Protein backbone atom coordinates (compact mmCIF):
# COMPACT_ATOMS: atom_id res chain seq x y z
CA UNK A 1 0.00 0.00 0.00
CA UNK A 2 1.20 3.47 -0.78
CA UNK A 3 0.16 6.94 0.27
CA UNK A 4 0.39 9.36 -2.63
CA UNK A 5 0.64 13.02 -1.74
CA UNK A 6 0.49 15.49 -4.61
CA UNK A 7 0.91 19.27 -4.63
CA UNK A 8 -0.76 20.88 -7.61
CA UNK A 9 -1.84 24.27 -8.88
CA UNK A 10 -5.26 25.14 -7.44
CA UNK A 11 -6.75 25.84 -10.88
CA UNK A 12 -5.78 22.35 -12.08
CA UNK A 13 -7.82 20.57 -9.40
CA UNK A 14 -10.88 19.96 -11.63
CA UNK A 15 -8.65 18.49 -14.37
CA UNK A 16 -6.82 16.26 -11.93
CA UNK A 17 -10.08 15.06 -10.38
CA UNK A 18 -11.43 14.24 -13.81
CA UNK A 19 -8.25 12.35 -14.75
CA UNK A 20 -8.33 10.41 -11.48
CA UNK A 21 -11.96 9.42 -11.99
CA UNK A 22 -11.10 8.22 -15.48
CA UNK A 23 -8.33 6.09 -13.93
CA UNK A 24 -10.87 4.62 -11.48
CA UNK A 25 -9.36 6.41 -8.51
CA UNK A 26 -12.31 7.80 -6.58
CA UNK A 27 -10.95 8.29 -3.09
CA UNK A 28 -8.96 11.29 -2.11
CA UNK A 29 -8.56 14.02 0.48
CA UNK A 30 -8.07 17.60 -0.72
CA UNK A 31 -6.79 20.49 1.37
CA UNK A 32 -5.67 24.02 0.76
CA UNK A 33 -1.99 24.54 1.35
CA UNK A 34 0.75 27.08 0.80
CA UNK A 35 4.01 26.12 -0.74
CA UNK A 36 7.04 27.19 -2.60
CA UNK A 37 9.43 25.47 -4.86
CA UNK A 38 11.31 26.69 -7.88
CA UNK A 39 8.44 28.99 -8.68
CA UNK A 40 9.49 32.22 -7.03
CA UNK A 41 7.04 34.16 -4.92
CA UNK A 42 5.95 37.69 -5.66
CA UNK A 43 5.64 40.87 -3.64
CA UNK A 44 2.46 42.40 -2.29
CA UNK A 45 2.11 46.05 -1.37
CA UNK A 46 0.11 47.20 1.64
CA UNK A 47 -0.46 50.93 1.84
CA UNK A 48 2.77 51.47 -0.06
CA UNK A 49 4.83 49.13 2.11
CA UNK A 50 6.16 46.27 0.01
CA UNK A 51 5.98 42.78 1.46
CA UNK A 52 7.67 39.71 -0.02
CA UNK A 53 5.37 36.75 -0.31
CA UNK A 54 7.16 33.53 -1.06
CA UNK A 55 4.49 31.00 -0.22
CA UNK A 56 1.98 30.49 -2.99
CA UNK A 57 -1.46 28.90 -2.82
CA UNK A 58 -1.46 25.21 -3.67
CA UNK A 59 -3.84 22.30 -3.42
CA UNK A 60 -2.71 19.16 -1.65
CA UNK A 61 -4.14 15.73 -2.55
CA UNK A 62 -3.78 12.64 -0.45
CA UNK A 63 -4.64 9.33 -2.01
CA UNK A 64 -4.09 5.92 -0.42
CA UNK A 65 -3.83 3.13 -3.01
CA UNK A 66 -2.85 -0.49 -3.44
CA UNK A 67 0.35 -1.17 -5.36
CA UNK A 68 -1.30 -1.80 -8.72
CA UNK A 69 -2.90 1.63 -8.63
CA UNK A 70 0.28 3.57 -7.91
CA UNK A 71 1.34 4.06 -11.52
CA UNK A 72 -2.14 4.81 -12.91
CA UNK A 73 -2.66 7.37 -10.13
CA UNK A 74 0.65 9.10 -10.81
CA UNK A 75 -0.10 9.16 -14.54
CA UNK A 76 -3.57 10.57 -13.94
CA UNK A 77 -2.28 13.35 -11.72
CA UNK A 78 0.37 14.25 -14.29
CA UNK A 79 -2.20 14.22 -17.06
CA UNK A 80 -4.46 16.58 -15.14
CA UNK A 81 -1.87 18.89 -13.63
CA UNK A 82 0.88 19.24 -16.19
CA UNK A 83 1.21 22.47 -18.13
CA UNK A 84 5.00 22.41 -18.60
CA UNK A 85 5.47 25.55 -16.56
CA UNK A 86 7.34 25.95 -13.31
CA UNK A 87 4.96 25.53 -10.40
CA UNK A 88 3.08 22.51 -11.78
CA UNK A 89 3.76 20.69 -8.53
CA UNK A 90 5.12 17.45 -7.24
CA UNK A 91 4.00 13.95 -6.36
CA UNK A 92 5.34 12.10 -3.35
CA UNK A 93 4.83 8.40 -2.78
CA UNK A 94 5.32 6.99 0.70
CA UNK A 95 4.84 3.47 1.94
CA UNK A 96 1.73 2.95 3.95
CA UNK A 97 2.17 0.44 6.74
CA UNK A 98 -1.44 0.00 7.63
CA UNK A 99 -4.89 1.18 6.67
CA UNK A 100 -8.07 0.67 8.66
CA UNK A 101 -11.64 1.36 7.64
CA UNK A 102 -13.24 2.88 10.70
CA UNK A 103 -16.78 1.71 9.96
CA UNK A 104 -15.99 -2.00 9.67
CA UNK A 105 -12.61 -2.40 11.29
CA UNK A 106 -11.24 -4.00 8.08
CA UNK A 107 -7.51 -3.68 7.70
CA UNK A 108 -4.95 -3.64 4.93
CA UNK A 109 -5.56 -3.48 1.23
CA UNK A 110 -9.20 -4.46 1.65
CA UNK A 111 -9.76 -1.28 3.60
CA UNK A 112 -8.30 0.97 0.94
CA UNK A 113 -10.53 0.34 -2.02
Amino acid sequence: MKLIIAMIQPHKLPDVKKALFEADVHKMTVTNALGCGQQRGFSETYRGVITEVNLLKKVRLEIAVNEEFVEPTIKAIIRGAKTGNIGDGKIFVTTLDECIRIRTGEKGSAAIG
Partner: protein
Amino acid sequence: MINAGDTAFVLLSAGLVMLMTPGLAFFYGGMVRRKNILGVLMQCFTALCVITLQWVFFGYSLSFAPGTGFWGGLQWLGLNGVGLEPNADYAGTIPHQAFMIYQAMFAIITPALIIGAFAERMKFSAFLVFSILWATLVYNPVCHWVWGVGGWLRNLGVLDFAGGIVVHINAGIAALVTALVIGKRKNFGHHPIPPHNLPFTALGTGLLWFGWFGFNAGSALAANGLAVNAFVVTQIAAAAGGLSWAFIEWYLNGKPTIFGTVSGAVAGLATITPAAGFVGPIPAVVIGLFASVFCYIAVAYIKPKLGYDDSLDAFGVHCIGGIFGSLAVGFFASKAINPAGADGLFFGNAHQLKIQAIGVLATAAYSFIATFIIYKVIDAVIGVRVSEKEESLGLDLAQHREGAYTVLE
Protein backbone atom coordinates in the same frame (compact mmCIF):
# COMPACT_ATOMS: atom_id res chain seq x y z
CA MET B 1 -38.58 77.60 17.48
CA ILE B 2 -38.17 73.90 16.76
CA ASN B 3 -38.01 73.12 13.07
CA ALA B 4 -39.27 69.66 12.14
CA GLY B 5 -37.00 69.32 9.12
CA ASP B 6 -33.88 70.31 11.02
CA THR B 7 -34.70 67.98 13.89
CA ALA B 8 -35.31 65.04 11.59
CA PHE B 9 -32.08 65.76 9.74
CA VAL B 10 -29.93 66.00 12.87
CA LEU B 11 -31.41 62.83 14.40
CA LEU B 12 -30.80 60.96 11.17
CA SER B 13 -27.27 62.34 11.03
CA ALA B 14 -26.69 61.17 14.61
CA GLY B 15 -27.71 57.68 13.50
CA LEU B 16 -25.30 57.87 10.56
CA VAL B 17 -22.40 58.95 12.77
CA MET B 18 -23.19 56.12 15.20
CA LEU B 19 -22.79 53.68 12.30
CA MET B 20 -19.26 54.96 11.72
CA THR B 21 -17.95 53.25 14.85
CA PRO B 22 -19.00 49.74 13.74
CA GLY B 23 -17.73 50.78 10.31
CA LEU B 24 -14.39 51.68 11.85
CA ALA B 25 -14.43 48.33 13.68
CA PHE B 26 -14.55 46.49 10.34
CA PHE B 27 -12.15 48.93 8.67
CA TYR B 28 -9.60 48.16 11.40
CA GLY B 29 -10.71 44.56 11.99
CA GLY B 30 -9.82 43.55 8.45
CA MET B 31 -6.31 44.95 8.84
CA VAL B 32 -5.26 42.92 11.88
CA ARG B 33 -4.31 39.26 11.91
CA ARG B 34 -7.28 36.99 12.31
CA LYS B 35 -6.43 36.06 15.87
CA ASN B 36 -7.06 39.68 16.88
CA ILE B 37 -10.16 40.79 15.00
CA LEU B 38 -12.51 40.24 17.93
CA GLY B 39 -10.21 42.30 20.11
CA VAL B 40 -10.61 45.23 17.71
CA LEU B 41 -14.38 44.78 17.32
CA MET B 42 -14.75 44.51 21.09
CA GLN B 43 -12.82 47.72 21.70
CA CYS B 44 -14.93 49.64 19.16
CA PHE B 45 -18.25 48.38 20.49
CA THR B 46 -17.12 48.96 24.08
CA ALA B 47 -16.30 52.57 23.19
CA LEU B 48 -19.84 52.83 21.84
CA CYS B 49 -21.28 51.66 25.18
CA VAL B 50 -18.90 53.27 27.64
CA ILE B 51 -18.59 56.73 26.10
CA THR B 52 -22.37 57.00 25.72
CA LEU B 53 -22.75 56.70 29.48
CA GLN B 54 -19.72 58.90 30.19
CA TRP B 55 -21.27 61.53 27.90
CA VAL B 56 -24.63 61.41 29.65
CA PHE B 57 -23.20 61.46 33.19
CA PHE B 58 -20.63 64.24 32.79
CA GLY B 59 -18.94 64.28 29.36
CA TYR B 60 -21.53 66.48 27.70
CA SER B 61 -21.46 68.99 30.52
CA LEU B 62 -17.66 69.19 30.51
CA SER B 63 -17.71 69.75 26.77
CA PHE B 64 -20.58 72.11 26.15
CA ALA B 65 -21.92 73.66 29.37
CA PRO B 66 -20.94 77.29 29.84
CA GLY B 67 -17.72 77.37 31.85
CA THR B 68 -14.11 78.50 31.64
CA GLY B 69 -12.02 78.74 28.48
CA PHE B 70 -10.56 75.31 29.29
CA TRP B 71 -13.50 73.23 30.48
CA GLY B 72 -17.26 73.36 30.43
CA GLY B 73 -19.15 73.78 33.70
CA LEU B 74 -20.84 71.09 35.74
CA GLN B 75 -24.40 72.43 35.54
CA TRP B 76 -25.46 69.85 32.91
CA LEU B 77 -24.30 66.77 34.84
CA GLY B 78 -26.59 63.83 34.15
CA LEU B 79 -28.20 65.92 31.41
CA ASN B 80 -29.77 68.09 34.08
CA GLY B 81 -31.38 71.00 32.24
CA VAL B 82 -30.68 69.45 28.84
CA GLY B 83 -34.23 69.12 27.67
CA LEU B 84 -36.37 69.27 24.60
CA GLU B 85 -36.22 73.06 24.25
CA PRO B 86 -33.63 74.41 21.80
CA ASN B 87 -30.37 75.88 23.07
CA ALA B 88 -29.73 78.98 20.99
CA ASP B 89 -25.97 78.92 21.64
CA TYR B 90 -25.56 75.73 19.63
CA ALA B 91 -28.62 75.05 17.52
CA GLY B 92 -31.70 77.21 17.77
CA THR B 93 -34.05 75.08 15.72
CA ILE B 94 -33.68 71.60 17.23
CA PRO B 95 -34.28 70.22 20.74
CA HIS B 96 -31.22 70.53 22.95
CA GLN B 97 -31.16 66.74 23.43
CA ALA B 98 -30.91 66.24 19.66
CA PHE B 99 -27.71 68.31 19.66
CA MET B 100 -26.47 66.39 22.72
CA ILE B 101 -26.96 62.92 21.20
CA TYR B 102 -25.50 64.03 17.88
CA GLN B 103 -22.37 65.23 19.67
CA ALA B 104 -22.29 61.99 21.70
CA MET B 105 -21.54 60.06 18.50
CA PHE B 106 -18.48 62.25 17.88
CA ALA B 107 -17.28 61.65 21.43
CA ILE B 108 -17.57 57.89 20.80
CA ILE B 109 -15.73 57.61 17.51
CA THR B 110 -12.80 59.79 18.60
CA PRO B 111 -11.33 57.40 21.20
CA ALA B 112 -12.28 54.52 18.87
CA LEU B 113 -9.99 55.98 16.19
CA ILE B 114 -6.98 55.60 18.52
CA ILE B 115 -7.51 51.82 18.61
CA GLY B 116 -5.63 51.58 15.32
CA ALA B 117 -2.37 52.58 16.99
CA PHE B 118 -2.25 49.96 19.74
CA ALA B 119 -4.15 47.20 17.95
CA GLU B 120 -3.19 43.59 18.64
CA ARG B 121 -1.40 44.20 21.94
CA MET B 122 -3.42 46.17 24.52
CA LYS B 123 -5.19 44.61 27.49
CA PHE B 124 -8.94 45.04 27.40
CA SER B 125 -9.05 46.29 31.01
CA ALA B 126 -6.43 48.93 30.19
CA PHE B 127 -8.40 49.98 27.11
CA LEU B 128 -11.53 50.43 29.21
CA VAL B 129 -9.80 52.73 31.69
CA PHE B 130 -7.88 54.51 28.94
CA SER B 131 -10.95 55.34 26.90
CA ILE B 132 -12.83 56.78 29.89
CA LEU B 133 -9.88 58.84 31.12
CA TRP B 134 -8.96 60.00 27.62
CA ALA B 135 -12.53 61.04 26.82
CA THR B 136 -12.74 62.98 30.08
CA LEU B 137 -9.32 64.59 30.20
CA VAL B 138 -8.56 65.08 26.50
CA TYR B 139 -11.66 64.89 24.32
CA ASN B 140 -13.99 66.87 26.58
CA PRO B 141 -11.62 69.85 27.09
CA VAL B 142 -10.51 70.04 23.44
CA CYS B 143 -14.12 69.80 22.32
CA HIS B 144 -14.92 72.68 24.67
CA TRP B 145 -11.97 74.76 23.41
CA VAL B 146 -13.11 74.57 19.81
CA TRP B 147 -16.88 74.22 19.94
CA GLY B 148 -18.08 75.08 23.47
CA VAL B 149 -19.39 78.52 24.36
CA GLY B 150 -16.46 80.34 25.99
CA GLY B 151 -13.85 77.90 24.65
CA TRP B 152 -10.58 79.74 24.05
CA LEU B 153 -9.96 78.49 20.50
CA ARG B 154 -13.54 79.28 19.55
CA ASN B 155 -13.09 82.80 20.89
CA LEU B 156 -9.85 83.07 18.93
CA GLY B 157 -11.77 82.36 15.73
CA VAL B 158 -10.51 78.85 14.93
CA LEU B 159 -12.75 77.21 12.34
CA ASP B 160 -13.38 73.46 12.61
CA PHE B 161 -16.58 72.58 10.83
CA ALA B 162 -17.02 68.92 11.73
CA GLY B 163 -14.05 67.89 13.82
CA GLY B 164 -10.76 67.95 11.93
CA ILE B 165 -9.08 69.36 15.04
CA VAL B 166 -11.37 68.02 17.76
CA VAL B 167 -11.66 64.50 16.33
CA HIS B 168 -8.92 63.70 13.84
CA ILE B 169 -5.89 65.63 15.05
CA ASN B 170 -6.81 64.96 18.66
CA ALA B 171 -7.17 61.20 18.15
CA GLY B 172 -4.32 61.04 15.65
CA ILE B 173 -1.79 62.57 18.04
CA ALA B 174 -3.03 60.31 20.84
CA ALA B 175 -2.50 57.42 18.42
CA LEU B 176 1.10 58.46 17.78
CA VAL B 177 1.80 58.75 21.52
CA THR B 178 0.29 55.35 22.37
CA ALA B 179 2.07 53.69 19.44
CA LEU B 180 5.37 55.11 20.70
CA VAL B 181 4.98 54.20 24.36
CA ILE B 182 3.30 50.78 24.02
CA GLY B 183 6.07 49.67 21.67
CA LYS B 184 6.12 47.57 18.56
CA ARG B 185 4.21 44.37 18.06
CA LYS B 186 6.29 41.23 18.41
CA ASN B 187 8.07 40.58 15.11
CA PHE B 188 7.16 44.02 13.73
CA GLY B 189 9.67 45.03 11.08
CA HIS B 190 11.17 41.56 11.26
CA HIS B 191 8.34 39.76 9.48
CA PRO B 192 5.48 41.10 7.37
CA ILE B 193 2.17 41.42 9.23
CA PRO B 194 -0.35 41.44 6.37
CA PRO B 195 -4.05 42.31 6.80
CA HIS B 196 -6.16 39.17 7.20
CA ASN B 197 -9.41 40.27 5.55
CA LEU B 198 -9.28 43.23 3.17
CA PRO B 199 -12.93 42.72 2.13
CA PHE B 200 -13.83 43.67 5.74
CA THR B 201 -11.67 46.76 5.41
CA ALA B 202 -13.51 47.71 2.22
CA LEU B 203 -16.87 47.04 3.89
CA GLY B 204 -15.84 49.20 6.84
CA THR B 205 -14.83 51.98 4.48
CA GLY B 206 -18.25 51.83 2.86
CA LEU B 207 -19.92 52.25 6.25
CA LEU B 208 -17.53 55.05 7.20
CA TRP B 209 -18.08 56.88 3.93
CA PHE B 210 -21.87 56.58 4.32
CA GLY B 211 -21.75 57.69 7.95
CA TRP B 212 -19.49 60.59 7.08
CA PHE B 213 -22.40 62.37 5.40
CA GLY B 214 -23.98 62.56 8.84
CA PHE B 215 -20.65 63.60 10.33
CA ASN B 216 -20.06 66.51 7.94
CA ALA B 217 -23.44 67.55 6.56
CA GLY B 218 -25.07 67.02 9.97
CA SER B 219 -22.60 69.48 11.46
CA ALA B 220 -24.60 72.25 9.81
CA LEU B 221 -27.19 71.32 12.48
CA ALA B 222 -29.95 72.29 10.08
CA ALA B 223 -31.34 70.98 6.81
CA ASN B 224 -30.11 73.93 4.80
CA GLY B 225 -27.77 74.99 2.02
CA LEU B 226 -24.70 74.71 4.25
CA ALA B 227 -25.54 71.06 4.91
CA VAL B 228 -25.83 70.50 1.16
CA ASN B 229 -22.44 72.12 0.61
CA ALA B 230 -20.87 69.90 3.28
CA PHE B 231 -22.53 66.81 1.77
CA VAL B 232 -21.29 67.63 -1.72
CA VAL B 233 -17.69 68.41 -0.77
CA THR B 234 -17.55 65.30 1.41
CA GLN B 235 -18.39 63.11 -1.55
CA ILE B 236 -15.94 64.97 -3.78
CA ALA B 237 -13.00 64.81 -1.37
CA ALA B 238 -13.53 61.09 -0.68
CA ALA B 239 -13.61 60.35 -4.39
CA ALA B 240 -10.53 62.45 -5.13
CA GLY B 241 -8.66 60.90 -2.21
CA GLY B 242 -9.42 57.32 -3.22
CA LEU B 243 -8.46 57.86 -6.82
CA SER B 244 -5.35 59.81 -5.92
CA TRP B 245 -3.98 57.06 -3.65
CA ALA B 246 -4.68 54.40 -6.28
CA PHE B 247 -2.80 56.38 -8.93
CA ILE B 248 0.14 57.06 -6.61
CA GLU B 249 0.45 53.30 -6.06
CA TRP B 250 -0.02 52.52 -9.70
CA TYR B 251 2.78 54.89 -10.56
CA LEU B 252 5.18 53.90 -7.75
CA ASN B 253 4.48 50.19 -7.27
CA GLY B 254 3.06 49.17 -10.60
CA LYS B 255 -0.40 48.16 -9.37
CA PRO B 256 -3.35 50.00 -7.82
CA THR B 257 -4.78 48.22 -4.75
CA ILE B 258 -8.14 48.14 -2.99
CA PHE B 259 -6.41 48.70 0.35
CA GLY B 260 -4.79 51.84 -1.05
CA THR B 261 -8.01 53.08 -2.62
CA VAL B 262 -10.04 52.76 0.57
CA SER B 263 -7.22 54.27 2.62
CA GLY B 264 -7.19 57.22 0.24
CA ALA B 265 -10.96 57.63 0.50
CA VAL B 266 -10.72 57.72 4.30
CA ALA B 267 -7.81 60.18 4.08
CA GLY B 268 -9.94 62.39 1.82
CA LEU B 269 -12.87 62.17 4.24
CA ALA B 270 -10.76 62.97 7.31
CA THR B 271 -9.17 65.89 5.48
CA ILE B 272 -12.37 67.50 4.24
CA THR B 273 -13.96 67.23 7.70
CA PRO B 274 -12.75 70.55 9.17
CA ALA B 275 -13.30 72.30 5.85
CA ALA B 276 -16.65 70.84 4.80
CA GLY B 277 -18.66 73.93 5.75
CA PHE B 278 -16.19 76.52 4.50
CA VAL B 279 -14.95 75.46 1.07
CA GLY B 280 -16.54 74.88 -2.32
CA PRO B 281 -16.42 71.88 -4.68
CA ILE B 282 -13.20 72.64 -6.58
CA PRO B 283 -11.10 73.27 -3.47
CA ALA B 284 -12.57 69.97 -2.22
CA VAL B 285 -11.02 68.20 -5.22
CA VAL B 286 -7.62 69.72 -4.42
CA ILE B 287 -7.98 68.84 -0.74
CA GLY B 288 -8.89 65.23 -1.58
CA LEU B 289 -6.04 64.80 -4.05
CA PHE B 290 -3.39 66.15 -1.68
CA ALA B 291 -4.84 64.32 1.33
CA SER B 292 -3.69 61.05 -0.22
CA VAL B 293 -0.32 62.45 -1.20
CA PHE B 294 0.50 63.55 2.34
CA CYS B 295 -0.98 60.48 4.03
CA TYR B 296 0.82 58.19 1.57
CA ILE B 297 4.13 59.86 2.40
CA ALA B 298 3.42 59.50 6.12
CA VAL B 299 2.44 55.83 5.88
CA ALA B 300 4.79 54.50 3.21
CA TYR B 301 7.94 56.52 3.89
CA ILE B 302 7.95 58.26 7.26
CA LYS B 303 6.56 55.41 9.35
CA PRO B 304 9.02 52.74 8.11
CA LYS B 305 11.88 55.22 8.42
CA LEU B 306 11.10 56.19 12.01
CA GLY B 307 10.13 52.62 12.87
CA TYR B 308 7.18 53.29 15.20
CA ASP B 309 4.38 50.74 14.99
CA ASP B 310 1.19 52.74 14.42
CA SER B 311 -0.31 49.41 13.50
CA LEU B 312 -3.31 50.52 11.42
CA ASP B 313 -2.09 54.04 10.60
CA ALA B 314 -4.45 55.98 12.87
CA PHE B 315 -1.83 58.75 12.99
CA GLY B 316 -0.73 58.47 9.38
CA VAL B 317 -4.21 58.75 7.92
CA HIS B 318 -6.36 60.64 10.45
CA CYS B 319 -3.91 63.05 12.01
CA ILE B 320 -2.04 63.95 8.83
CA GLY B 321 -5.40 64.33 7.08
CA GLY B 322 -6.82 66.41 9.94
CA ILE B 323 -3.79 68.72 10.02
CA PHE B 324 -3.80 69.26 6.28
CA GLY B 325 -7.58 69.82 6.27
CA SER B 326 -7.47 72.28 9.15
CA LEU B 327 -4.73 74.27 7.48
CA ALA B 328 -6.57 74.03 4.15
CA VAL B 329 -9.41 75.93 5.81
CA GLY B 330 -6.89 78.75 6.29
CA PHE B 331 -6.24 78.73 2.54
CA PHE B 332 -9.58 77.91 0.94
CA ALA B 333 -12.28 79.16 3.35
CA SER B 334 -14.73 81.59 1.83
CA LYS B 335 -17.49 83.71 3.31
CA ALA B 336 -19.41 83.17 0.12
CA ILE B 337 -19.95 79.57 1.26
CA ASN B 338 -20.50 80.22 4.94
CA PRO B 339 -21.09 83.81 6.13
CA ALA B 340 -20.57 82.65 9.73
CA GLY B 341 -17.04 81.51 8.83
CA ALA B 342 -14.14 83.57 7.55
CA ASP B 343 -12.12 84.12 4.39
CA GLY B 344 -8.86 82.20 3.98
CA LEU B 345 -5.53 83.17 2.44
CA PHE B 346 -6.76 82.72 -1.13
CA PHE B 347 -9.60 85.13 -0.41
CA GLY B 348 -7.31 87.78 1.03
CA ASN B 349 -7.22 86.89 4.72
CA ALA B 350 -3.79 85.53 5.74
CA HIS B 351 -4.71 85.95 9.38
CA GLN B 352 -7.07 82.95 9.29
CA LEU B 353 -4.20 80.62 8.35
CA LYS B 354 -2.31 81.78 11.45
CA ILE B 355 -5.35 81.15 13.65
CA GLN B 356 -5.80 77.67 12.17
CA ALA B 357 -2.13 76.89 12.85
CA ILE B 358 -2.52 77.95 16.47
CA GLY B 359 -5.55 75.67 16.82
CA VAL B 360 -3.67 72.72 15.30
CA LEU B 361 -0.54 73.22 17.39
CA ALA B 362 -2.34 73.83 20.68
CA THR B 363 -4.50 70.73 20.26
CA ALA B 364 -1.59 68.57 19.14
CA ALA B 365 0.59 69.67 22.05
CA TYR B 366 -2.14 69.20 24.64
CA SER B 367 -3.22 65.83 23.28
CA PHE B 368 0.40 64.65 23.17
CA ILE B 369 1.19 65.54 26.77
CA ALA B 370 -2.14 64.55 28.31
CA THR B 371 -2.27 61.20 26.47
CA PHE B 372 1.29 60.44 27.57
CA ILE B 373 0.47 61.08 31.23
CA ILE B 374 -2.77 59.06 31.10
CA TYR B 375 -0.94 56.15 29.48
CA LYS B 376 1.88 56.16 32.03
CA VAL B 377 -0.53 56.27 34.97
CA ILE B 378 -2.56 53.32 33.68
CA ASP B 379 0.61 51.39 32.87
CA ALA B 380 1.90 51.92 36.41
CA VAL B 381 -1.37 50.87 38.06
CA ILE B 382 -2.71 47.94 36.00
CA GLY B 383 -0.28 47.53 33.09
CA VAL B 384 -1.26 48.28 29.51
CA ARG B 385 0.30 45.62 27.36
CA VAL B 386 -0.59 41.93 27.22
CA SER B 387 2.11 39.35 27.96
CA GLU B 388 4.22 38.03 25.13
CA LYS B 389 2.47 34.68 25.36
CA GLU B 390 -0.97 36.29 25.08
CA GLU B 391 0.20 38.33 22.12
CA SER B 392 1.25 35.12 20.34
CA LEU B 393 -2.05 33.46 21.13
CA GLY B 394 -3.98 36.52 19.96
CA LEU B 395 -6.28 38.90 21.81
CA ASP B 396 -9.43 37.02 20.79
CA LEU B 397 -8.58 33.98 22.85
CA ALA B 398 -6.31 35.62 25.41
CA GLN B 399 -8.58 38.54 26.33
CA HIS B 400 -12.05 37.39 25.39
CA ARG B 401 -11.93 33.60 25.20
CA GLU B 402 -13.68 33.43 21.90
CA GLY B 403 -12.48 32.86 18.38
CA ALA B 404 -13.67 34.68 15.25
CA TYR B 405 -13.21 31.87 12.80
CA THR B 406 -13.27 28.13 13.13
CA VAL B 407 -10.62 26.17 11.28
CA LEU B 408 -12.61 22.98 11.12
CA GLU B 409 -16.39 22.88 10.58
